């Protein structure tokens, strides 16, 4: 199990959707929309005799609120399924050599605002579950 590889491939999935990925909340609103691939919330080692590891990792999507309507529309698309711009669909359907099978998105929320530099931004955290 390679956490750096997992982060890298999650970032690669989100890049075509227009998200720049970070390991921490950026302080420049110009880089939004952004994805923050956080530190794992939980790691279960030795899930199988063959050392399969279960990883639960938060992914926070951050949207510029320069236009509140645009931020809302972008977040709607990200959290929807079967629409252009769906982050959920991209995560569920893209494989990786760093995890086994597909990523499960087990939840989304809370939605709120965060400070990015001197601006407020709309943010929502997805909980991802994968096996490596």
């Amino acid at each position: 199990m390679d956490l750096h590889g997992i982060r890298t491939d999650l970032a690669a999935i989100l890049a075509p959707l227009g998200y720049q990925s970070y390991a921490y909340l950026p302080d420049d609103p110009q880089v939004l929309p952004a994805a923050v691939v956080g530190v794992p919330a939980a790691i279960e080692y030795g899930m199988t005799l063959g050392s399969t590891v279960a990883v639960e990792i938060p992914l926070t999507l951050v949207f510029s609120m320069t236009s509140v309507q645009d931020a809302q529309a972008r977040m709607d698309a990200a959290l929807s399924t079967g629409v252009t711009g769906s982050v959920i669909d991209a995560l569920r359907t893209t494989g990786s050599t760093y995890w086994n099978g597909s990523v499960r998105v087990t939840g989304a929320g809370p939605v709120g605002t965060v400070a990015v530099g001197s601006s407020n931004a709309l943010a929502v955290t997805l909980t991802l579950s994968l096996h490596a």
Partner: protein
Amino acid sequence: MATTVLVTKGLVKIGASTGVLATDIAAAVDFSDAILSAKISVNVDTIEVPPTLATPKVGRAGSKKYQLDLGYLSNDTSLTTELFSVLWTAAGTPDCTLVFAFQARDGAVSATNPQWQGYFIVDSASLGGTAEALSEGSGSFQLTAAPVRAIV
């Protein structure tokens, strides 16, 4: 007498049965990546001897039942490398029998790390589960005889 703690790790290999244990074990596939739990056990029936005025009620050992319990990640993407498919295929054969090898620790087989070997009857295989949850299967498989405790 001191005992040591066993944290289950090791391996589970499963394969086709030709009746020649060493050959079957050598050809068996390592399914450890899919094994969530593995356990072998024996249960002995107790026969109750009726009491008389002169003798108390006592028990005697009856028949033995050897069993392999497996929990596994269940998938059907391959007929040969996914445990569910191997079980499913075996369940469709007349004798429903597969060979297994189970070690409860990592490392080479030795007197302190034995490998349990034998044949089991496939009486179940399952795929799927709750929506958006892992597909897991489990089974309690009866062995055809007492397992061999190999140490080399």
